[in-house]
């Protein structure tokens, strides 16, 4: 085990959580024969501190986010991000331009086969298309 890793483990055992930018000061008290470790994070702005602090305890309360976006809106956004026009997507999927337009405007729902073809054309997972 490397000494850096050992030191890190020792700090963890002592309950000292270090973040990038923190300064660690070591004070040696001769009489009591013990070390005093002081973490100085005063050089961080409150913005930086908040981000680093939240990130450090990410393991526990994180929730998977499911955006409230309809299939039509998803399809439009993903198609535009892929740089495809409605006609180009129609050619790639074999689904008519009108049908794709109706799906994008949420005027009609798409079947599994159509969604599968669209996902393949956009090179994405089919689950991204459905809410």
């Amino acid at each position, binding site marked *: 085990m490397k000494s850096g890793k050992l030191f890190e483990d020792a700090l963890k055992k002592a309950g000292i959580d270090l973040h*990038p930018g923190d300064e660690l000061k070591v004070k040696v008290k001769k009489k009591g024969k013990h070390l005093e470790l002081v973490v100085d994070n005063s050089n961080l702005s409150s913005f*930086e501190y908040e981000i680093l602090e939240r*990130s450090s305890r990410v393991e526990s309360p994180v929730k998977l986010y499911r955006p409230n976006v309809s299939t039509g809106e998803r399809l439009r*956004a993903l198609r535009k*991000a892929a740089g495809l026009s409605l006609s180009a997507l129609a050619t790639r999927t074999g689904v008519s331009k009108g049908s794709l337009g109706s799906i994008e405007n949420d005027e009609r729902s798409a079947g599994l086969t159509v969604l599968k073809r669209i996902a393949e054309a956009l*090179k994405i997972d089919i689950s*991204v298309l459905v809410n």
Partner: protein
Amino acid sequence: MQPWSVFLVSEAEDELEEAPPQIKRKFDQWVVLVQGYGPWLKGGWRTEALQGTLKGFYSIRLNRQWRVIFEVRPVRNIIVIRIVAHDYKSTSRR
């Protein structure tokens, strides 16, 4: 292709709840795109890698004022740490 997953820390959830509706919409749109194509999007989406003490974090602009600070974790996971409006009034001009 395996989709990306977007997670929110509890504080970011609260921040999103309090954000204006157009920001929520824009955030949802960003999440959909990220699920499909990952965090490094082309086009009008500006994904910026943060520097200095915040190295390893990324920022995306939802509009001129609002930005999302996130982290990329292994196996296609994105952790949204902050959804924040930049206070331009408090920043002094050079």
